[in-house]
């Protein structure tokens, strides 16, 4: 469904992210005008992780019509898995110089709890970062979709799910660091986190993973599964009467989106250096939904764009006019839902813009393609 021009644009964006930006950081000197400073690399990496989350949410909301207000929990679980790995590999280098992570020494624990075993292996941690959110999503989704919970009810119980897990992770004796979470990481896979090379590497990795996730989602959405997803969004009963089992398709997409969020979490935590239970707050998950709404539901590129725009605005406002940020965010919620339900991407479908587009594409007809 993408014209060759659009594919070219995509390739251009990926190239920019994966090659040009890192290149401008690594291969230019700090004094030069083209130099991209390190903090932009870190922030950019963070935003790319958010963009992956936005893609995941778009898959289940924009294309399948299931609004989840608890996706932050999958993101956080992935982050916790990689955080546990990084805590294990820095054994002996913490403040207390002990084999156990600092917070366990603090709590006067004598040995690692059973669920921390194995996390000193990077690939096991990676596997768990994808498996645990996936499992949680699968079980939750199975029960929810089987009893055909839909719409607002479903959104509310996803909130309950993330709230319950947040409460549990906040407890000190749950073994995940309590309200301080996991922090003070030193290394990942042997690379020191503080080194600029590692940061750059993580950025490039995030860009590549983002590109990969985008292509995967594009592939799904343009195939037969994508058709069923859209049909489920538009009229689930008809899909049922036509002979399809909505449970299987919804469950698959739901679990996949949870796994993608977990993957985003894996890339996120090494770049920000901390993971704590406030990532599981219902408010965070609701904000993730607004990224997708702002950018444009049912358009993959739009969702990623929305994540970038909203988080960029947030960074700017919280730095320069912090009191105003919540008003801006609230206004964004109201404005987008009332006036621009299709998000920024739908602004491109505006008749005036379409005219401009048709002039550019030359021989192509003025009627917009899919």
């Amino acid at each position, binding site marked *: 469904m993408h014209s060759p021009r659009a594919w070219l644009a995509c390739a251009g964006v990926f190239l920019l992210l994966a090659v040009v930006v890192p290149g401008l950081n690594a291969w230019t000197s700090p004094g030069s005008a083209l130099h991209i400073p390190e903090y932009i690399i870190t922030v950019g990496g963070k935003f790319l992780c958010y963009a992956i989350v936005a893609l995941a949410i778009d898959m289940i909301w924009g294309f399948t019509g299931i609004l989840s207000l608890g996706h932050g929990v999958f993101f956080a679980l992935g982050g916790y898995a990689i955080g546990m790995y990084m805590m294990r590999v820095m054994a002996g280098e913490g403040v207390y110089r002990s084999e156990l992570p600092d917070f366990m020494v603090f709590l006067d624990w004598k040995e690692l709890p059973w669920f921390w075993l194995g996390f000193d292996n990077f690939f096991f941690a990676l596997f768990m970062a994808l498996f645990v959110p996936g499992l949680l999503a699968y079980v939750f989704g199975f029960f929810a979709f089987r*009893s055909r919970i*839909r719409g607002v009810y479903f959104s509310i*119980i996803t909130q309950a799910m993330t709230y319950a897990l947040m409460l549990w992770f906040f407890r000190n004796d749950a073994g995940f660091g309590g309200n301080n979470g996991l922090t003070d990481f030193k290394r990942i896979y042997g690379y020191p986190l503080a080194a600029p090379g590692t940061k750059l590497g993580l950025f490039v990795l995030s860009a590549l993973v983002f590109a990969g996730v985008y292509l995967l989602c594009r592939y799904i959405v343009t195939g037969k599964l994508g058709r069923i997803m859209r049909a489920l969004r538009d009229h689930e009963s008809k899909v049922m009467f036509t002979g399809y089992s909505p449970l299987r398709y919804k469950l698959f997409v739901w679990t996949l989106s949870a796994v993608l969020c977990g993957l985003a979490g894996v890339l996120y935590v090494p770049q920000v250096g901390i993971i704590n239970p406030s990532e599981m707050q219902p408010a965070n998950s609701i904000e993730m939904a607004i990224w997708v709404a702002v950018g444009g539901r049912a358009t993959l590129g739009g969702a990623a764009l929305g994540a970038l725009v909203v988080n960029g605005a947030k960074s700017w406002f919280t730095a320069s006019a912090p009191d105003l940020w919540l008003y801006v965010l*609230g206004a964004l*919620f109201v404005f987008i839902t009332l006036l621009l*339900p299709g998000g920024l991407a739908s602004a491109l479908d505006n008749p005036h813009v379409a005219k401009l587009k048709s002039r550019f594409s030359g021989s192509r007809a003025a009627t917009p393609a899919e």
Partner: protein
Amino acid sequence: MLIVQLLRRLRQLTASSWLALIVLSIAATWVRPAAAAGFEQAVAGLASEDRDQLGAAIVELGASGEPRALVVLKALDAGQIKLDEKGAVFIQDGGALVDAKTGSPAQPSGATRTPPLNNRVRKNLTLALARSELESPNAEVRLNAATTLSKDASTDLVPAMRAALAKENDADVADLLKLSIAGVDLASEDAKLQLDALRMVGDVSAVGLLPAVRRLAEEGGPAKSPEVKTLAGAVEAALERKVLWVSTLANLFYGLSLGSVLLLAALGLAITFGLMRVINMAHGEMLMLGAYSTFVVQNIVKQVAPSWFGAYLVLALPTAFVVCAVVGVLLERTVIRFLYGRPLETLLATWGISLGLIQTVRLLFGAQNVAVENPSWLSGGWELLPTVVLPYSRIVVIVFSMVVVGFVWMLLQKTRLGLYVRAVTQNREMAGNVGIATRRIDMWTFALGSGVAGLGGVALSQLGNVGPELGQSYIVDCFMVVVLGGVGNLAGTVAGAVGLGVANKFLEPLTGAVLGKIMLLVILILFIQWRPQGMFAPKGRAAAEL
């Protein structure tokens, strides 16, 4: 004749008896000075630098029985004792200093200092004071003294307590004294004393002594008497039954109280959700606005008419209702009206509004919690056991929530507006066809729902902290009540709220507050598998779509 007989008697007294008489009469004049000397020594001991000696001096003052001793002890407690460099002790009476021993004005030689009191000395002081006050003619003073002693009795005070008990004619004081003596006797070596004490504890159901009784039941006391062991076992069982009974009642009460708060919070949400199928994420903020309206009314009343402070709640209730109803109507007219039929969008839009409301309140009133005081008739509580107190504020909130439910029920069942609301809830299209202005009803329902939330906010302000984030902490619980109870039916909301509240409180002692809450959420998610529409599901075809 008598005089002659007397004189004859006198001559009959032997020389030794004469001597005895002389000695006794001289001794009689010495007795009072000796006791007075003991008192004086004790007072002098107050000037000692050694805290042990100070403590001993205080204990002696308590035992001395001199009326002056009580005055000195009271002065020490009030911090009015002053010592000079030579070790003389004075009491500060107003601006002047008087000698502690005699009470006559005196001058200190040199600078004065106050004796240092640490916790242990202060404890001795409290006990000594209580012991002296046991002799007081005032029954209330004796009651206070006996209460203090019952918390902290020790073996050396028992004789004094027994002596006071023998003279006691006030029943309450006597009971307390008997209890304190029994508490000490439980640990005594004499099995008979232990048995008496056990019987006393059993009669009075003194739950506070349960640990001591339990120990006796296990070991039988230092004498290892089997009789003591069996009686202790029986008394322990009786006491434990009482504790179980009272704690169940207390849990039930607290569950009802929590349920009543949830009910007030969720009632408005259930009404609007039942009617318009919109989840109003700004509902928590209505609660918050209600609480802040109470705060504002409280401040105004404090400034304008302080003597009417006890009645400020009467003013706060309609204010909160009106403020929240107005905000609700504004919300409905400007935002929700345009999102008709798109519940997910409404959810997001109202969330955005809630962010704006929280920030506004934060900017107007500050990000910290604000102080809303309970009027005096709401303070205090009903004491069932020393450890179980049912606060009056919670009792009033339970009653208040029932009143609000009754009010809403009456509105829905007995008024024309209620009739229209019910009609639109059951079948919107048909109600429109029959001539009901459905959009107008939406507006009124939203006003009602928000107003009820405002009333809930008033109740919350009396029970807990009031801050900008008040609504956020209740919104998830409100949703749970709505999901559990089902919509379109008042009974569902009541059952859901009370059920969740009671279940939460009964789980708490078993699993702790946080884990209990998590378990409830999980149980709820599972419950929905079985009954997706909640406990009291609406019937009919319109109910099938959500």
